[in-house]
């Protein structure tokens, strides 16, 4: 028995086995649920890192569930791209869990904790399952696990509108999932297989088939809804705004990224890139929508007075970058896109947590009520500033790294207006984050010496440490970006080279 061989399956199923166990543990003692959840995600994360190390040295891994060779059975296929995305998801989930403990205790009634953590693990399981699998229908199944648990998590908030926000998300999300499953059905109909690698082979002769084209369009539409690309983003602002902060953080940091991953995987590994460049200018359309998303997300964000709404619209803009990177089809841009999956996860997750803490302390989500936070919660405000600078794309932060490669990619593939879009959006981002930082530091009374007159607000150590850690990573990987960039570059190469999947 070689356990390491089974890591691809275990990284999904080990947390999965914790899902039914956690509510049972909750019957004994509610306190241990959190520890069990941390244990589950940590185990998964450890396995993912082992796999990442293995994939980067030895090449892609294929795991046949039930030992049925694909396309008969379901295959898990891990190359650099999903290994990287898995690592990001798992890492951010772990940090969210550590960071979120205090917030969850504050925002979710205690008797709900066992169910909450159980659903949270399901959410993560769903995402890892979607990322790791090489089977289209399996993607759908795990997508639904993610979505269902996501709906439940959003609605745990005590806010009045939360169930409605969640319901709208459910309706739109289910429509999206149904489009995806319909698209999968179309593909299956003309190829007879559900395995992605096999599908990629069998789809080649079908160039120009209306079925394939429609399937592509349906799946694309479904994923774009899940990614919340403008103008299909309508569910996202409410969902992020009305959910508990810990949930918004975890969701904002991870779930749209998984959508992005699936999109990249389909575009590059299943559908031939030349295929759609040739017949219908799909990349051109995607670039258009990505740009629209980037610009409109930022523009709408400027107008927001609610901080969580602002962050949500900012997410709409930021997801556009990843989409843009995918659609530009070249190594640098894709490196930037993959890198942005990582950096945006760090930054946006961090931002939502910081905001969650502030909102909990001052009891308001209006930006204008943030006056004086700079003095009253110095660590939190500092962390917010670092994350903001990073998301604006100031050098020496991770946000800059991904934009850098994105622009390089745009130059090398000659998408001039994309450069303009990226830079314009940086400016817009600077405006709306600048506004918040300004209010935090410069509004509110001060005395002659400038030392805090107002009472300090609580900043529990359990939150400051993870917060500082993520902020540190934002800077660290901004300066010493070689490690993630090389991984991202390998990931980009893996999908672009197409050697491993076709």
């Amino acid at each position: 028995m070689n356990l390491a061989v089974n890591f691809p399956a275990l990284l999904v199923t080990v947390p999965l086995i914790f899902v039914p166990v956690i509510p049972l543990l909750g019957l004994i003692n509610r306190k241990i649920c959190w520890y069990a959840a941390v244990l589950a995600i940590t185990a998964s994360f450890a396995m993912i890192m082992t796999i990442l190390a293995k994939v980067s040295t030895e090449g892609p891994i294929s795991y046949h569930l039930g030992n049925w060779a694909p396309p008969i059975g379901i295959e898990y296929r891990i190359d650099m791209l999903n290994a990287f995305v898995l690592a990001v998801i798992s890492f951010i989930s772990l940090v969210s869990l550590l960071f979120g403990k205090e917030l969850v205790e504050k925002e979710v009634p205690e008797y709900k904790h066992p169910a909450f953590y159980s659903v949270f693990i399901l959410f993560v399981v769903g995402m890892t399952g979607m990322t790791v699998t090489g089977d289209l229908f399996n993607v759908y199944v795990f997508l639904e696990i993610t979505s269902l648990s996501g709906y439940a998590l959003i609605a745990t908030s005590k806010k009045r509108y939360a169930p409605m926000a969640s319901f709208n998300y459910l309706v739109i999300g289910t429509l999206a999932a149904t489009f995806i499953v319909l698209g999968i059905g179309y593909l299956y109909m003309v190829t007879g297989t559900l395995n992605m690698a096999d599908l990629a082979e069998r789809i080649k002769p079908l160039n120009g088939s209306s079925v394939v084209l429609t399937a592509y369009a349906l799946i694309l539409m479904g994923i774009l809804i899940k990614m919340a690309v403008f103008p299909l983003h309508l569910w996202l602002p409410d969902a992020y705004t009305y959910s508990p902060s810990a949930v918004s953080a975890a969701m904002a940091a991870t779930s749209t990224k998984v959508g992005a991953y699936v999109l990249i995987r389909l575009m590059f590994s299943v559908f031939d890139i030349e295929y759609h460049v040739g017949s219908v200018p799909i990349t051109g359309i995607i670039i258009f929508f990505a740009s629209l998303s980037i610009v409109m997300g930022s523009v709408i964000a400027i107008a927001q007075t609610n901080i969580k709404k602002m962050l949500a619209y900012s997410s709409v803009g930021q997801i556009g970058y990843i989409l843009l990177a995918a659609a530009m089809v070249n190594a640098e841009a894709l490196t930037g896109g993959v890198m942005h999956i990582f950096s945006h996860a760090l930054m946006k997750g961090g931002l939502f947590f910081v905001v969650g803490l502030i909102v909990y302390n001052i009891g308001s989500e209006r930006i204008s009520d943030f006056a004086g936070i700079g003095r009253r919660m110095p660590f939190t405000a500092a962390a917010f500033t670092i994350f903001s600078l990073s998301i604006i794309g100031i050098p020496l932060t991770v946000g800059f790294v991904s934009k850098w490669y994105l622009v390089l990619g745009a130059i090398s593939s000659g998408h001039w207006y994309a450069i303009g879009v990226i830079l314009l959006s940086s400016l817009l981002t600077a405006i709306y984050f600048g506004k918040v930082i300004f209010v935090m530091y410069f509004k509110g009374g001060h005395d002659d010496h400038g030392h805090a007159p107002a009472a300090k607000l609580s900043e529990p150590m359990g939150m400051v440490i993870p917060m500082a850690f993520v902020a540190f990573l934002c800077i660290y990987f901004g300066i010493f970006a070689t490690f993630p960039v090389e991984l991202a570059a390998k990931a980009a190469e893996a999908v672009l080279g197409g050697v491993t999947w076709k």
Partner: protein
Amino acid sequence: MINLMLLLFLVVIAIAAIQAKDLLNSIMYLSVYSLFMALVWTELNAVDVAFTEAAVGAGVSGVFMIAALTRMNRFESSRERTGLGKYFPMAVVAVTAAMLFYATVDMPAYMDPEAPIHKHVAPYYIEHSEHETGSVNIVTSVLASYRGFDTLGETSVVFTAAISVILLLRRRDKNEK
């Protein structure tokens, strides 16, 4: 021919279901819709699926809906949308329908044994299922063995639903502080 009749009947019921003002009627129509769908699937030899649909679509989910409806207003009372909002859904539906009809053009004909799905992967199941898994029912063997992981996912989804519903609806136990 009976298949076609059933299908056309389905269309009628579906329209009735979404047009009824009384939500209870609407739910009943939905159950009937599911039941007829199960009939269609039996006709199409998908007995397992038909069985499930009859139990779930016509049975359990209808019960859930009615149970929920007992807690709230039975009649739909929305005003009609006005202006552009009225035509927007129509337009979206029309575009989607056009796309789906367009897709139908290149599809293999209905019931065509030469269609790609019958030539790849599926023959393996039909041939090997019995001696590899000892199960006569190929659907069960694919479900539980060849694609067992999907079914694990499915069970997780069901569990997700249960735990989500608990998370959303369950109150604090009375005998707890």
